[in-house]
């Protein structure tokens, strides 16, 4: 399993960047997901007082914010399962994993923030005008796509050999 051409000291040094990639994938995506969940949650709590029947439908922004967290989790698992020992790790892989982690993490942070703000405004608007529900979902799908772009780039970078 271990390649004799790879110097384990280089592998150990490169693992700093690999682990930094895992951490940034999860932490930034979680920050985005948590902002989205909290901000939409506040909106749902407020509108639920006026229209309790619409609350379960309006949990969709919260679910979409949770999916951003899942994107970060996927990439973090992919990178971490390739980071098992310093004997078969290279600077090439280390920096590729760092790039992967940062791309999904920072995209997830931005997407989660957008989903939070749109979700908050959207659920409050839907309480007053139920016809706006589909419009809110469409806007949030575009925001979710931003996180997906980060996931795509991270998958390409994270699986480089």
């Amino acid at each position: 399993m271990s390649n004799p051409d790879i110097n384990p000291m280089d592998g150990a040094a490169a693992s700093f960047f690999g682990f930094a990639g895992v951490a940034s994938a999860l932490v930034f995506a979680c920050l985005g997901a948590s902002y989205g969940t909290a901000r939409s949650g506040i909106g749902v709590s407020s509108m639920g007082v006026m229209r309790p029947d619409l609350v379960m439908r309006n949990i969709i922004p919260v679910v979409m914010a949770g999916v951003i967290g899942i994107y970060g989790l996927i990439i973090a698992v992919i990178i971490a399962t390739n980071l098992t020992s310093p004997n078969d790790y290279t600077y090439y892989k280390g920096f590729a994993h760092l790039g992967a982690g940062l791309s999904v993490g920072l995209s997830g942070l931005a997407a989660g923030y957008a989903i939070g703000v749109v979700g908050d405004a959207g659920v409050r608007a839907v309480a007053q005008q139920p016809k706006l529900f589909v419009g809110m979902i469409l806007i949030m799908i575009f925001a979710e796509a931003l996180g997906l772009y980060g996931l795509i780039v991270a998958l390409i970078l994270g699986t480089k050999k």
Partner: protein
Amino acid sequence: MWLQEISPYTWAAIGTALAIGLSVTGAAWGIFLTGTSLLGAAIKVPRIRAKNLISIIFCEAVAIYGIIMAIIFQGKYSYVENPTAAPLAIFAGFALFWGGVTVGFANLACGVTVGITGSGCALADAQNRTLFVKILVIEIFGSALGLFGVIIGIVMTTSAKFN
């Protein structure tokens, strides 16, 4: 490189400290966010006290995740002579550092989220009894984020051994 010249035990210890310290900060933040709203709303509507303690318990669970991970991390320490020349020790030091950062910051975010949502839950419950369970669903989504941090912390550090 200077990163490897710092003793791996420094990295590991700081990671363990961040895991527990930041998790507890998140839990504390969440508890005070929910607690203030709950106590304020319960002045007029005392019936909400008992049910809404579950939001406080969700925040406390975040601190429990942190302490479990910190205990797991500290169990991996073992003595190696000349650690800055041992690739396995350097690898383990970095793994524990970034594992601690992951667990700590994920739990920080999770704690604040559960606190904000718990505060909303208490205030909504005070106005309309049926809203409690519905808003609790949002809190459960929030607390999943801390679990993601724990999962990744475990996956990162399973193969981290000092010797």
